[in-house]
């Protein structure tokens, strides 16, 4: 049997993502790729498949040595020292300050508003300013949230902090990430895409110690289903095997009064 004279580009998507095209054919395919968003999506998806194939490479007993992590960090620290400016950074585009915009809008409106138009221009200017104030407030709120998120991220990047995932059975979302700082015996809980709770109720976290639930904090999701609680004491004495979440009265319960909605193992590495 003979192959077709020429492959249609679509036929090459999987081979390209797998790295199985010779260089010149790969370049031709890339030219096609530039013209087709659908093909790009498909390549991205096949790349995810290829990334999973990496896992199939593992052979029993083949594990990196215990010093590799430290060597990686030493190498990165070394690169950082050699180029203290840090990694390549994208060029920041300076943002025009909003005061400039107000001034511009004002001068423009004043110029347009000669004579009889001036009063209505003033009215429009007031509307623009009100709109701007609203946007600035929203910007300040989101900057505040971003700063909080950055601060939390800072805390979870500390050495010795391990991440655990709590999931709801059969549903990839919502989820909770639990970061356990074993040095200080503190945890950070970060929930995302959480379902709203009924009035008067809240989510409650439980640590499972020696097979029994130990009550911990309660929290409510924000408008978009996010919730972050920091500095949660982890119960001492005994073996902590898991964390779970139930829906309880706002004040919290001493024992769970409803079924578990999310759970995840907290195994020691």
């Amino acid at each position, binding site marked *: *049997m*003979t*192959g077709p004279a020429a492959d249609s580009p679509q036929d090459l998507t*999987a*081979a390209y993502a*797998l*790295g*199985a*095209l010779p260089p010149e*054919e790969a370049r031709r395919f890339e030219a096609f790729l530039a013209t087709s968003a659908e093909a790009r999506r498909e390549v*991205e*998806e*096949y*790349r*995810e*498949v*290829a*990334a*999973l*194939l*990496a896992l*199939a*490479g*593992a*052979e029993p007993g*083949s*594990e*990196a*040595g*215990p010093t*590799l*992590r430290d060597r*990686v*960090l030493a*190498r*990165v620290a070394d*690169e*950082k020292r050699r180029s203290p400016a840090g*990694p*390549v*950074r994208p060029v920041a585009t300076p943002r025009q300050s909003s005061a400039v915009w107000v001034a511009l809008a004002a001068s423009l409106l004043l110029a347009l508003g000669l004579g009889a138009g001036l009063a209505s221009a003033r009215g429009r200017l007031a509307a623009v300013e009100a709109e701007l104030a609203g946007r600035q407030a*929203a910007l300040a709120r989101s900057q505040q*949230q971003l700063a909080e*998120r950055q601060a939390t991220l800072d805390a*979870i990047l500390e050495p010795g902090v*391990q*991440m*655990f995932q709590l999931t709801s059975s059969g549903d990839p979302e919502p989820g909770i*990430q639990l970061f356990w700082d074993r040095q200080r015996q503190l945890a950070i809980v*970060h929930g995302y*895409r959480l379902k709203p709770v009924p009035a008067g109720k809240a989510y409650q976290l439980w640590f499972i110690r020696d097979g029994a639930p130990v009550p911990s904090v309660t929290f409510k999701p*924000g408008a*978009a*289903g*996010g*919730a*972050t609680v920091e500095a949660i004491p982890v119960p001492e004495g005994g073996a902590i095997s898991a964390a779970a979440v139930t829906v309880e009265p706002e004040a919290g319960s001493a024992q769970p009064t409803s079924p578990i909605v999310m759970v995840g*193992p907290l195994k*020691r*590495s």
Partner: protein
Amino acid sequence: MADAAAGAAPFGDGELVARAAQGDERAIGRLYDRYGAVLYAVAYRIVGQRADAEEVVLETLAQAWREASRFEAGRGSVAGWLTMMARSRALDLVRSRSRRDRITAMAAADRPGASPAMGEVRPDPSGALEHEERRRQVRQALDTLSPPQRRAIELAYFEGLSQSEIAERLQEPLGTVKTRVRLGMQKLRECLRPFYFERGT
């Protein structure tokens, strides 16, 4: 809204890469905790021995550090980006090694540095569990392929052979190999879609 952007998303790989791009090297440590085992697995399968596989992981994360700001969130997962770098570094190493070996005509003696495994690794425990489940799924998915399909895909991914080189190696017509790669990858995609690594965004 802001809440959606900052409040209701998991702390993810994309944020770690962004952190690295800002010069925070702890983020690379965390990426190692999550994906060191995956990178080591693909590197080991390609280079076949421990010291070189570790070198590949080291070089890959150093490259990730240098190029963190070029990572395009939304164009695929961080895991995909990292494994692609590790695979190509490992293949480069094998190619340069075979050149080197031809020159020195060395026997396939075990090389210094390839000491047997000892001590414990410290992977992110949840990551390890996740990888274990994914690994099982990948193996199951590979088992659904016909042996020739599987062979063609493995030769492409782990040995870096082009489709024509695979055809030559297996003494099969090129068209047959192309069909196997395409159908095999389609099948893997169907099986593995729920198990992709976390997206970069």
